[in-house]
């Protein structure tokens, strides 16, 4: 048990290190990212919380916080359908989704599911960029 826990911790740390390295340019993150992280921590008590600002891949100004991908790993999701899990995340971030955040890709997993494939996926390319699209989700 101790060994398993240690292994899990190492995997989690390794994953987090990779994500952190990937976003070295904005190591601190902005206020929206900080708010998302804090609200999800409070609402879902996740064992793992991986958050990536993907705004750089879209036609928005540099340093924007409009497109995010999040992996939330929580025992709270046991027995819940994917729809129910995503709604929990939406509820926790209702302010951000009604305001600055246009897109939020969600991976909502139980700890067992996360251990099967502990990685934050990559979102598809934007395809957008028209002024008509910019500014609203």
């Amino acid at each position, binding site marked *: 048990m101790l060994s398993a826990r240690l292994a899990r911790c190492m995997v989690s740390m390794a994953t987090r290190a990779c994500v952190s390295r990937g976003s070295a340019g904005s190591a601190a993150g902005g206020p929206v990212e900080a708010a998302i992280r804090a609200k999800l921590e409070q609402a879902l008590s996740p064992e793992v919380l991986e958050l990536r600002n993907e705004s750089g891949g879209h036609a928005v100004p540099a340093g924007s916080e409009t497109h995010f991908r999040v992996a939330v790993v929580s025992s709270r999701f046991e027995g819940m359908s*994917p*729809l129910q899990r*995503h*709604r929990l995340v*939406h509820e926790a971030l*209702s302010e951000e*989704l*009604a*305001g*600055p955040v246009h*897109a*939020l*890709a*969600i*991976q909502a997993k139980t700890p067992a599911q996360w251990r099967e494939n502990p990685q934050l996926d990559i*979102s*598809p*390319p*934007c*395809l*957008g960029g*028209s002024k*008509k*699209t910019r*500014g*609203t*989700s």
Partner: protein
Amino acid sequence: MRLPGKAHRYGVSDMIGGIEPVLSNHETHPRAYPMRTSSGPAGHQGLCKPSGGRRSGDQRAGMSASLSRAAAALLRWGRGAGGGVLPRAGVRAASSGGQAEQLDALVKKDKVVVFLKGTPEQPQCGFSNAVVQILRLHGVRDYAAYNVLEDPELRQGIKDYSNWPTIPQVYLNGEFVGGCDILLQMHQNGDLVEELKKLGIRSALIDEKDQDSK
């Protein structure tokens, strides 16, 4: 491949075996929101929902749209839902119930309904494109696709209807299924093949599986 000239907006679903019974229960219920009951100032769209933040720009643009545009939008919804939904041509819905009813009819009109940013041929969003590609993989072609970028009222209305804050959105047999992430998950774990089977749609991937097993 889609036939040239075929309108994706009002795709005809495959009604094998006649009309299926309408589901009596929905996981999603329309969420009530404040609605002006009397006509507002000139040019004001009663259907617009007040919202702060960045979206206020879009709402402001929407509110400045002409009345005829609003009427056309309602007619467009009504047309998709079939005759008789709107009591009188050109009359704006006076209550949120009216809007929810129209959207309810819209999502039930076809077996597979998607709300996208852009069209299946020209998606304007990576996640909308992913939904289109998944349906293509399964050989689903006769589905209704609505471009919310053409209609700000639909764009906000469908979010309120499903209580889901983002686009794209997918409906199967009139029931809200989720967005891109959930559809992708269903594709990966085999649930989508099963759900399509329930609708009388045979996924193209079944044949691929058979070939793989040989």
